[in-house]
């Protein structure tokens, strides 16, 4: 197998195994020697051509390239997953609650509060639902994304603003606020 054929195979596998579209920039990261963009673009064209008469097609969308099933297969594929899972897992609900009540938060913040590492699928479900999105990066090593709830979230929960979220007023909050010195604590209520 030639060097070029090998490169092409690597690109193909990367695109088939990625759940997100991959940009040319992403694809350069596959190779240590940073294959140049024009080569990658050329190979992508070749791959597109190789698959022309097959069941999938290599398509360019806003954030990059992805393989997608040709439209005539949709009818079959829809029979496989007619309905999405009827319920969110406990993890999804807890992560949503943390983002709603503690926004803006990073993934690490969420992990710290829940005490377990976070499956990226959990965040993806909430982003797909358009209940949360990334509103910036925190100035920390790795520049982690900051998550917050969206307008859509407020609409779906019939809230005018986040401050309308139910408050904890049990002994629980009591104990918590007693054990805590929080300079941010103040009594102002909006409206």
């Amino acid at each position, binding site marked *: 197998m030639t060097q070029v054929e090998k490169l092409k195979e690597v690109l193909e596998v990367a*695109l*088939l*195994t*990625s759940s997100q*579209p991959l940009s040319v920039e992403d694809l350069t990261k596959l190779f240590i020697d940073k294959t140049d963009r024009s080569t990658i673009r050329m190979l992508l064209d070749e791959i597109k051509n190789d698959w022309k008469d097959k069941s999938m097609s290599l398509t360019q969308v806003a954030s990059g390239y992805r*393989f*997608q*099933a040709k*439209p005539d297969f*949709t*009818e079959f594929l*829809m029979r496989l997953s007619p*309905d*999405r*899972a009827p*319920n*969110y897992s*406990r993890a999804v*609900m*807890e992560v*949503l*609650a943390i983002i*709603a*009540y*503690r*926004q*803006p938060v990073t993934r690490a913040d969420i992990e*710290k*509060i*829940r*005490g377990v590492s976070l499956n990226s699928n959990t965040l993806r479900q909430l982003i797909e*639902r358009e209940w949360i999105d990334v*509103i*910036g*990066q*925190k100035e*920390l090593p790795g520049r982690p994304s*900051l998550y*917050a709830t969206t307008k859509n979230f407020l609409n779906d929960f*019939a*809230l005018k*603003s*986040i*401050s309308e979220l*139910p*408050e*904890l007023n049990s002994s*629980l*909050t009591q*104990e*918590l*606020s007693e054990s805590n010195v*929080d300079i*941010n*604590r*103040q009594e*102002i*209520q*909006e*409206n």
Partner: protein
Amino acid sequence: MTASIKNLAKVYGEEIELLPQDLYIPPDALEVYLDSFEGPLDLLIYLIRKNNIDILDIPMANLTLQYVNYVEKMKVIKLELAADYLLMSAMLIEIKSRMLLPKISLEDEEDDPRAELVKKLIEYELMKDAAENLNEMPQVGKNILIAQSYFERVTEITYPDVTLDDLFAAWKNVIKRAKQFEQHQISRSELSVREHMTIILRKLNDKNLLEFSTFFNYEKDPIPKLVVCFLAILELTKEGLIKINQQTSSSSIFLQLGDT
């Protein structure tokens, strides 16, 4: 016999293969050692393998002495960890003393006081070994990559129904459990402040640089809202998410994202 000891402690960045014979451990290194053992059985296995002892014929006096020495040192530093370790000390001493008693039974085949301990040690070592193997196996998400190409869905995806009560229940659950991990603070910080932090970040995301006064609508906003907005700006600054700039003492104040 598999005598290799993995997961050895590192002291001053160097892996330590063997402990000094006299069991002297520098005080600041002990904690590192402690963390590298999963418990008393792990420590015992380490001592046995290190000393090349036949696990089926453990010299109890020797092993007990070494073990107790360790635990004594641990007690000095990390008291709360010592409970499981202390129990094992007691057990070792008991086995040792039973071995000193004259044999009563004729059926001594079944009666070696060490039998129970040896079984435990081997069973644990088996699982320890299995855990290492599992960890090295290829795993999805780590080094097995699976095809998951896209396809266009025609019908509406039906999403789960979630009510505000569900969300609140989840939040209560988080708080309740978070109390079990003592070190982080879930405080009842005002929601409106956090919401304004989000609003401000969204605005700066669009514009990157905005004049301080654009965040306040003095005519329309009630005073509490202005205060909340101000507190949100302070909080964002404290968390390093935004920067506040002013060229001279009377010029305009600008806010920008913390990354420039």
